[in-house]
């Protein structure tokens, strides 16, 4: 078991879009904590601010006010270039639409983050080796040279997961990871996420689907830019339930 420490801590985060009279507050003071090794879902109806929170947690944008401490580092006021570095080294993204580079092999998609790993010494053979092992981990060892259009949706999402893991991030952010998949592929992806979680990966998943959210240990529900409630799902229990349902 990994030692428990706080990976994500947001303190009274607000995010206001626009300026002057027509400004819209997407977040009105959100404080959440996520521990290392947790599998957490962020839920909420559209307009609740869950995407905005995900962008801030994912270092794609900065809070208007409040503090965000990621892995012990205050990242609320870093420059764009510094945020890019944080994204590269500490965060792995999984998107609803997979977001792989077209006409680029699975292997090259997986090694993409290594390209921007500034300061790390370059060793292409080692990089490829690592990408291979990541593709093996997601069950695509035999698809390394396939391009996205030659892969099914589920397989593409697996490539995306391998890409998210390549830089050994402190957490993985999954934005509706099953949203574009049929239920069977969706379950496979969820099973893969569970596997990663069981190996100690911290996962934050944004979803609007309560069934998917039920896979996680904890669900943070947002409403009107505020935390509405936090429920503990009892992960082991829900996993059993899911197994009963499939049998």
């Amino acid at each position, binding site marked *: 078991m990994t030692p428990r420490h706080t990976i994500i801590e947001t303190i009274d985060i607000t995010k206001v879009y626009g300026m002057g009279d027509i400004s819209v507050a997407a977040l009105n003071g959100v404080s959440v904590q996520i521990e290392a090794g947790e599998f957490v879902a962020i839920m909420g109806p559209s307009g609740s601010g869950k995407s905005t929170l995900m*962008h801030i947690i*994912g270092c*794609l*944008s900065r809070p208007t006010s409040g503090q965000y401490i990621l892995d012990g580092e205050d990242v609320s006021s870093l420059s*764009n*270039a510094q945020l*890019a*570095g944080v*994204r*590269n*080294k500490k965060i792995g*993204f999984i*998107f609803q639409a997979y*977001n*792989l*580079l*077209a*006409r*680029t092999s699975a292997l090259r998609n997986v090694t*993409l*983050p290594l*390209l*921007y*790993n*500034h300061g790390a010494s*370059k060793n292409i053979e080692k990089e490829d080796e690592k990408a291979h092992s990541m593709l093996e981990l997601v069950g695509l060892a035999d698809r390394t040279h396939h391009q996205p259009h030659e892969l099914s949706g589920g397989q593409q999402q697996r490539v995306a997961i391998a*890409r998210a893991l390549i*830089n050994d991030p402190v957490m993985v952010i999954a934005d509706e990871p099953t949203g574009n998949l049929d239920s069977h592929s969706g379950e496979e992806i969820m099973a893969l996420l569970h596997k990663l979680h069981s190996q100690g990966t911290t996962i934050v998943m944004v979803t609007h689907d309560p069934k998917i959210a039920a896979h996680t240990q904890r669900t943070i529900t947002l409403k009107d830019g505020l935390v509405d409630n936090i429920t503990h799902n009892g992960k082991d229990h829900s996993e059993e339930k899911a197994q009963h349902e499939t049998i």
Partner: protein
Amino acid sequence: MKPFEAMRIAWEAILKNKVRSFLTMLGIIIGVSAVIIMVAISAGTEATIQEQITSLGSDLVFVQSAMTRGGPGQMPSGGLVYDDAAALEEGVSGIVSVVVEQASTETIKAGNVTLEDIEINGTTTGFPSVRDMTIAEGRYFNDTELERKTKVAVLGSTVAVELFGSTNNAVGQYITVANTRMAVVGVFEERGLVGNTDFDSRIYMPITVVFQKFTFNPFARFMGDNIRMIYVEVDPQANLDTIITQIELLLAKRHNVTLDEADFSVTTQQDIIATQESTTAAFRSLLGWVAGVSLIVGGIGIMNIMLVSVTERTREIGIRQAVGATADDIRLQFLTEALLLSIIGGLIGTAVGVGGSYVFGAVSDMRTVISAGSILLAFGSAAIVGAFFGYYPANQAAKLDPIEALRYE
């Protein structure tokens, strides 16, 4: 991102869109090949002119009539006269020989062929030597014929072909110049254009015949027969400036004028070369500007396509930003792509330009000379154009917001 990785990514991006990449490069290809071909043509022209001028015969000084003394509404008067030539030969040291020329324009007939407005050149026997003309058939007229005003003519090759169908059956035939019947004693070899003078479309005869028949002047008895030009062949060892000064002083004295109002002008080969050089320099810079403009248009083409490409690849940019690409990384990527496009375009353009110059030189009358300088110039400007016009699209790409870019459909 390290430069070699930027190169690899740019190369892959170019390969992924082969047709678009080629169309993007087309402007640069045209620009670079245009620069090379145009510089090759102007260099070829220059070399040809240089050779022609050298082949005018070396160590020549041209003394030309300049009729400056006639006021408005008056007949121009003055200028060189026939006797000036003999005076120069006698009075100026360092002169090897003197040849005189007077011309008129007449209609020529032979059989049922009539040629109008043919320039007839009356000269002395040294003419073929100073103008570097070679007799192809027959002979040039001799001193006896010059003295006796014998009505003989030597034809330029074009005239011979037009009158008699070819150069080798003209000798021995008769032609009628205006109303004078003359025997053809020789035909010149083809000489081609020298500067803008076509020596092949003229006929040549003793200058004494021209004076008598075509430029008859009733006052010649008192003033001498007017001539157009004296060719002075000088001793190559002699000081040219001294000879020119002697010629000017002697003629001014003979014509009773000051040097400021001289009715003649003295030109050397160097003067002609300088004039031609300034003409070709202007020609060359004009071509250079035209080619430069096409390079700039090529650059704008690159900028256009790169802007489209940035928009089209917004999502790709978003993905790269999400996994950690900084603005600098994105800028470097697109700038490298633009640069690589223009360098490849430059290479293809160089190949097309060099090949085109060879082909152009082979199939047309114009000569082309390919210089390493023009290749470097064209190639260098292509790279500069690529960097310059690639910067704006690259910067647009770098400025994209990752969230917006990821949402882009």
